[in-house]
């Protein structure tokens, strides 16, 4: 009897989660657009010129949110993966798979915007410095996670294998974050130019935070959308998906 209850939980959660996610998605899109417009407006229209870097510093409004998100999404992904591994909950595996592509996207954007920033500031697109390298490794970890899951047909096995990889890769996150502290490198430490002129800093900080919030909302919206697709695919033989498909005509 207990088995049945556990089963019910296991299988029912996607079923209840699916419509809930569907309702939430538009709200997150709206918030993402709101914060994005506000942040970009502050960052690109209102915020003053940086004393040291000129106008080039405005890449910060893209680069920092992307970098933060790339690390943060990895943590969330590893969290879900770990939960899935420990408690064998189907939904968490799906969440991890749903987050990975977005995380990879942000890791790539962090590298891309960083490279475009590095050329005018450091005079080079790329250096093999600790933070840059560990961010690159992060991108490869995301790609490895996606490739590993794609290579395994059985979704349950794919979830578990991916979870192990994700958990092993977590060591990389503190390395990225603290690399500037542990090794003195070319890359900016904690916000050099922001402290220079406090009056400007407020605007910059606001722009940056709003952009980061926008990326956050975007990630949630995207992850929910993707997890819904994954659910449909994986649960296609369950009654609730069949009913859903029937309803849609």
């Amino acid at each position, binding site marked *: 009897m207990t*088995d049945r209850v556990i*089963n019910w939980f296991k299988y029912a959660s996607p079923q209840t989660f699916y419509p809930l996610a569907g309702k939430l998605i538009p709200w997150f899109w709206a918030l993402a657009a709101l914060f994005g417009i506000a942040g970009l407006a502050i960052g690109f229209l209102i915020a003053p010129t940086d004393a040291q870097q000129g106008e080039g510093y405005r890449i910060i409004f893209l680069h920092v949110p992307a970098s933060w998100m790339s690390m943060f999404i990895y943590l969330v992904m590893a969290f879900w993966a770990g939960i899935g591994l420990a408690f064998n909950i189907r939904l968490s595996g799906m969440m991890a798979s749903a987050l990975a592509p977005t995380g990879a996207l942000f890791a790539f954007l962090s590298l891309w915007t960083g490279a475009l920033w590095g050329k005018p500031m450091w005079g080079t697109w790329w250096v093999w410095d600790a933070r840059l390298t560990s961010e690159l490794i992060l991108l490869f970890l995301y790609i490895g996670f996606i490739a590993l899951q794609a290579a395994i047909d059985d979704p349950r096995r794919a979830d578990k294998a991916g979870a192990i990889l994700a958990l092993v890769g977590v060591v990389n996150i503190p390395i990225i974050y603290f690399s500037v502290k542990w090794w003195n490198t070319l890359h900016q430490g904690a916000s050099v130019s922001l402290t220079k002129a406090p009056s400007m800093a407020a605007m910059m900080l606001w722009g940056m935070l709003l952009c980061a919030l926008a990326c956050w909302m975007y990630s949630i919206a995207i992850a929910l959308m993707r997890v819904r697709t994954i659910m449909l695919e994986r649960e296609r*033989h369950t009654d609730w998906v069949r009913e859903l498909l029937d309803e849609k005509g």
Partner: protein
Amino acid sequence: MLEASNLECVRGERSLFADVSFRLDGGEMLYLQGRNGSGKTSLLRMLCALTPAVSGEIRWRGAPIGKLGEEFRSELCYLGHQNAIKEELTPFENLLSAARLAQEVLDEEAALEALALVGLRGREDLACRYLSQGQKRRAALARLVNEKRALWVLDEPYVALDPAAVELVAGLIGAHLQAGGLAVLTTHQTVTVPAGAVRELWLGDGDATRRSR
């Protein structure tokens, strides 16, 4: 000793079997039957805790095998479709290293005798890659000769063996049962085990119902 209740096995989108229950005590053998693809191998692997069951429970001496872990494994001897012998090593080396990995003591004399018993005299020191199909299977089965662990799980042990060897293996299983051991066995050949009680279990028709929850 070994109890399974309401086991269900799902492969891909197929539910191979559901609600399989049985109980096996010392001196008894479970003879698992079914068409090709009906899930016999899958069930055996569940009994070894290699694959988790989708639902249902397996108990050994009253405790769920997932919890028991090493305790259960130290009483279990599994022989699968694969022979688990190294082609580069000789039958003698294979036998010894299998025993060592299972943390059993097997002296060289006993190993040589076991190999002679399964008909590999003169091949003890020939790398297994040169053995014939049946001789490889014999090399794998030589483990059973001195096997003292309580639960034997054998997946088509008779495959590729000639009639004399089949009889020999059946004899080994019989002796094991008589000593109070348990065995779970699948085979498509009709072979009678000389001793012990046999329970039969048929698995569904192999063309299982599509799964729907």
